[in-house]
């Protein structure tokens, strides 16, 4: 299965991975601080374990600390 993670193609290890699986597999930094978007929509933390990913899904891991600079 191929999905997009933070704009880049990625093949998860599991056949039907959840967002929680993906967070662990990608060793996402500071998971308690991350916002997850699936196909442009916010996913609640309590649904990470039950939200299954499918082919061509687009996942974003985002942090509120970001912002850019001069």
């Amino acid at each position, binding site marked *: 299965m191929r999905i997009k993670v933070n704009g880049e193609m990625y093949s998860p290890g599991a056949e039907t991975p959840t967002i929680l699986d993906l967070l662990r597999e990608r060793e996402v*930094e500071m998971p308690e601080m991350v*916002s997850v978007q699936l196909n442009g929509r*916010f996913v609640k933390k309590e649904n990470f374990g039950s939200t299954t990913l499918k082919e061509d899904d687009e996942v974003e891991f*985002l*942090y*509120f*600390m*970001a*912002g*850019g600079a001069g």
Partner: protein
Amino acid sequence: MKGFSTKAVHGKALRKDPHGALRFPLYDAVAFEQPSARDIQWAFEGRKPAHTYSRITNPSVEHFEQRINLLADSLGVVALSSGMAAISNLMLTIAETGSNIVTTKYLFGNTYSLLESTLKPWGLEARYIDMEDTDQLRRSIDHKTRAIFLEIITNPQLQVPDIEAISQVARAQAVPLLVDGTLTTPYIFKSKDFGVDVEVISSTKSISGGATSVGGVIIDNGTFDWGNCPRLEESAGKYGEFALLTKLKREVYRNLGACLSPHNAYLQTLGLETLGLRIDRSGANAQQISEFLETCRKVRSVHYPGLKSSRYHERARAQFKGKFGGILTFELESREKCFAFMDGLKLIKRASNLNDNKTLILHPASTIFCEYSSGEKEEMGVGESMLRLSAGIEDVVDIMEDIENNLAVI
């Protein structure tokens, strides 16, 4: 870890220091290099939790934010250059032209000025009500109301609003409850437990550790659905509970440049470690001073929530875990008597600040509220014969001696 002070001293850093420093170091740097072009791209896009530029994020500031977050048991914290920066950034993030904020005239003078002189010309209406009247509060809210805003202990009136009653109205109308908790801090008032959605604090006061530095924080308790706020609707769709914090960091806070300096963050993180000790001491001093002042015939009235004579005593006891803060006010016969009293003081400092380690005194009507007319000051509960005293952490016997000596000669 259960205790407030244990958390304040031992709270874990978000990231490990490479040298194992027991005190999180001061990163007095502007910019941070990334390993690759893609890393810096991701940092800018918010896809990587990396520091890029200290106007946006800085390790020492982040550490301070995380420590406040732990103590407040909140969703997230943004630290800013002052308490006023915290209030103005918050207002500009949640409100837009044509909207309104329901508040009270019992506000810090500069907050009132922000609403009336700075934000009103941009089209933000402030509706002033009596926060003791929840029916009036309910009637004042309409579809353009973006928040209810008030102080947990009002400065300098020392009114203590019923936060649970107000939060019930806010909850029923799907309007966020924003409070200024400068005079309480999470040590004596855990705003989340009383239905507050967002708390701002001037960390210049108790948190800085004795007037070491200027700063402020915005604490999002994570209890409000920001999808109900038109200006944050889009952000809520993308970032959910982090909508307010993201909008701040990626737009308003970034663009206004109201960042806390790393040096101040370092000092204030240190200040947090002794916050409980200092609040307990200044509170005990304020209690003794106010009880003493009540017995003085030259003192017309004394206001301190810790006094049994205060109409807010029982409410304050319930809301603040039996603590009442370090600020009290008292009235003498006239402005002239107030000035004469202040001028004779030897130990107590004539200065405009609160919760310093030193005891401070101020005549609010001629200072913080000097730009307002007599009528406005009356509406704001600031009388000409009122003095505000911020109890420090000195030995109370010395503070009392200074007060007693001066009362004798005016």
